């Protein structure tokens, strides 16, 4: 089993290395290698999931030692890890296949597929890691691969800037995460997850709100939650399959997974804060998504909003539901991102939805699968999103009413902006030359769409999955099923998506080149467009506060550390060197003279004639 999991982890790294060293010029072979690797990962993961059902894999070796402290490298493949492993391997494989079609014309395919392999390696590392430091290492590695892949089109200014932004904003969160890890080690004396769980179980007083909030900083950065959400919409500058895999289905969900891994550390206050934070994010991102024109940005904000739902579910004490929603969200969000990729590919990289229109007739498979994704995320009854999202809403209704109200408004908005996206893109008349000439893509691209569409439909029926896969979520699902007000919630949830459907149909059914919202409610439109000025505030902070401070520190450094201390000390010793150099004249006579003078002085001192 352990050999198997080691193979699983290092297979993509091997593939990336081979690509890097031998296949840089050979995109065809590199892409096939990467796709076969991801296929291998899928097979190995399924094997592992089936075999680890009864006994979770827990294994470690010492990586290195410093004094009495040893850093372990180990695996912990338990119930939540199995589910994430399945999601990563399965969605990852489909997106690799889709990439074959999407990136077929790209000249830098080997770089792209190498990056995907590195990402798979890092993501599997997070999934399997059994201690916080190892999670942190792979955490940074996914950040790196995300940087690499966002910057795939690095010749464009957008992508170059976006990759930097994603990397730097993540650093801010990771700094908090690192402090959290240090605090954890300080308090518990270990960073191993199982040992931490035992210790926290043994003495619940050990943990503190500060500690778990510091650890949650990692989640806030990686899952792009408030106030570090600004990087995710910009990250859409990368290739669309990358957005689907990394910035929707798996990497951003790793933040939620981190929370689940350390849920025993969380105090009620911290949980409440996270629930509120998630719920507000769900609503805020909804408003942002409502007014975007770029198809990928709409989906990006929708991702933020759904991550907010997962965070809320976790904060409300339903981590199982959060993971369940992570899975269903991975299916339908990957589906919609790949659908948008299919549209973008067919329309020659046109991304403005107001330049699409009427694509349903020209791209029937993409349109139908995309519609399924929209229905699933809106929470249409008996599709996958209905089960997971309404479970969160029902839990919120019973546990925390303010959070429920925010989440429900978010759900209404989700339905509105998702149907808006669908109607503007696929219905009506074509509004540009590109969209008139669009054609359905080949099987490599539609195949993954169909598979994901099927899963988006049936993904909510937990009875269909093997028990080992959803073991972690089942108790919470059953708990939610027992909660009161079930009927009431079905009515509310159903009315939410029906409202979204009718509103969008009437409001966005027949649009021209402009967003009808901007002419009817310009004030509201502009407010949403501004995204509450977060980017501007951060810019202001950087330009007016941080840069002057950095400049001031630089001057101080030049003056005191570099000037006075480093140069000063060097100057003093240089002075001595100058003196000593003056004695070195190159004449043997001078040397012998000084030698005798020195000897005489020494003897004089030794016998006491002169004294210093």
């Amino acid at each position, binding site marked *: 089993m352990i050999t198997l999991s080691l193979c699983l982890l290092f297979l993509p790294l091997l593939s990336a290395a081979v690509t890097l060293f031998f296949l840089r010029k050979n995109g065809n072979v590199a892409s096939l290698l990467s796709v076969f690797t991801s296929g291998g990962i899928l097979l190995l993961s399924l094997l592992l999931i089936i075999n680890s059902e009864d006994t979770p894999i827990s294994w470690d070796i010492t990586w290195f030692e410093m004094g009495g402290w040893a850093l372990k490298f180990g695996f912990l493949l338990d119930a939540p890890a199995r589910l994430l492993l399945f999601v990563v391997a399965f969605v990852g494989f489909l997106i690799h296949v889709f990439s074959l079609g999407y990136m077929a014309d790209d000249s830098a395919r080997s770089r792209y597929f190498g990056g995907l392999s590195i990402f798979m390696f890092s993501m599997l590392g997070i999934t399997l890691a059994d201690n916080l430091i190892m999670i942190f290492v792979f955490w940074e590695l996914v950040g790196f691969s995300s940087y690499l892949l966002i910057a795939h089109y690095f010749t464009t200014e957008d992508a170059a800037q976006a990759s930097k932004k994603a990397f730097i904003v993540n650093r801010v969160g990771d700094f908090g995460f690192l402090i959290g890890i240090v605090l954890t080690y300080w308090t518990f004396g270990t960073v191993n997850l199982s040992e931490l769980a035992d210790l926290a179980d043994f003495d619940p007083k050990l943990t503190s709100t500060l500690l778990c909030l510091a650890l949650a900083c990692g989640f806030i950065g990686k899952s792009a939650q408030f106030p570090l959400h600004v990087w995710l919409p910009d990250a859409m500058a990368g290739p669309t399959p990358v957005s689907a895999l990394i910035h929707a289905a798996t990497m951003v969900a790793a933040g939620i997974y981190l929370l689940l891994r350390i849920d025993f550390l969380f105090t009620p206050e911290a949980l409440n804060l996270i629930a509120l934070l998630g719920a507000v994010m769900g609503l805020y991102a909804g408003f942002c998504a409502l007014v975007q024109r770029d198809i990928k940005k709409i989906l990006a904000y929708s991702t933020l909003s759904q991550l907010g739902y997962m965070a809320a579910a976790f904060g409300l004490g339903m981590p199982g539901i959060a993971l369940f929603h992570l899975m269903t969200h991975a299916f339908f969000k990957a589906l919609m991102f790949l659908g948008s990729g299919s549209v973008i590919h067919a329309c020659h990289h046109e991304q403005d939805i107001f330049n699409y229109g009427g694509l349903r007739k020209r791209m029937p498979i993409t349109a139908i699968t995309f519609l399924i994704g929209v229905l699933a995320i809106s929470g249409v009854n008996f599709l996958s999103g209905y089960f997971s999202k309404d479970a969160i809403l029902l839990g919120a209704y019973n546990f925390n009413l303010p959070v429920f109200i925010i989440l429900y408004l978010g759900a209404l908005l989700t339905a509105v902006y998702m149907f808006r996206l669908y109607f503007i893109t696929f219905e009506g008349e074509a509004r540009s030359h590109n969209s008139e000439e669009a054609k359905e893509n080949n099987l490599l691209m539609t195949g993954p769409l169909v598979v994901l569409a099927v899963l988006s439909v049936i993904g909510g029926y937990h009875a269909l999955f093997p028990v080992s896969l959803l073991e972690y979520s089942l108790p919470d699902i059953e708990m939610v099923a027992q909660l009161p007000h079930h009927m009431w919630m079905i009515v509310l949830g159903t009315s939410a998506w029906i409202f979204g459907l009718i509103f969008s149909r009437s409001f966005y059914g027949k649009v021209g080149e402009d967003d009808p919202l901007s002419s009817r409610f310009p004030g509201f439109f502009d407010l949403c467009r501004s995204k509450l000025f977060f980017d501007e505030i951060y810019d202001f902070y950087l330009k007016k506060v941080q840069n002057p401070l950095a400049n001031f520190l630089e001057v101080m450094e030049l003056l005191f550390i570099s000037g006075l201390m480093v140069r000063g000390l060097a100057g003093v010793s240089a002075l001595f060197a100058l003196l000593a150099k003056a004695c070195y004249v190159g004449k043997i006579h001078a040397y*012998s003279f000084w030698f005798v003078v020195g000897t005489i002085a020494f003897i004089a001192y030794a016998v006491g004639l002169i004294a210093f």
Partner: protein
Amino acid sequence: MESITPHHFLILATLLFVVGFLGVLIRRNVLLMLMSLELMLNGVNIALVAFSRSSLNLDGSIFVFFIMTVAAAEVAVGLALLVALFKKRDSVFSEDMRLLRN
């Protein structure tokens, strides 16, 4: 007529030593510098013998034999080096032997 005391020997020894030292300082010719060095050694030898005689102890005289032996050996090596140097440089003047300074 005054008898010869150890002081006289010491004055002679000091004179010899100073003459040798001035030779080392002033001469440009390395061969002469080497000879001046021998002169300084002999000055020391005289001082040793004088002390040995005045204190009725043979240690100093024996030490002189050692010094002479070592000096003989040293001169042999020094001259050999000098010959080799002359063959290479065509010069025995010390100002021509300052490769490291340049």
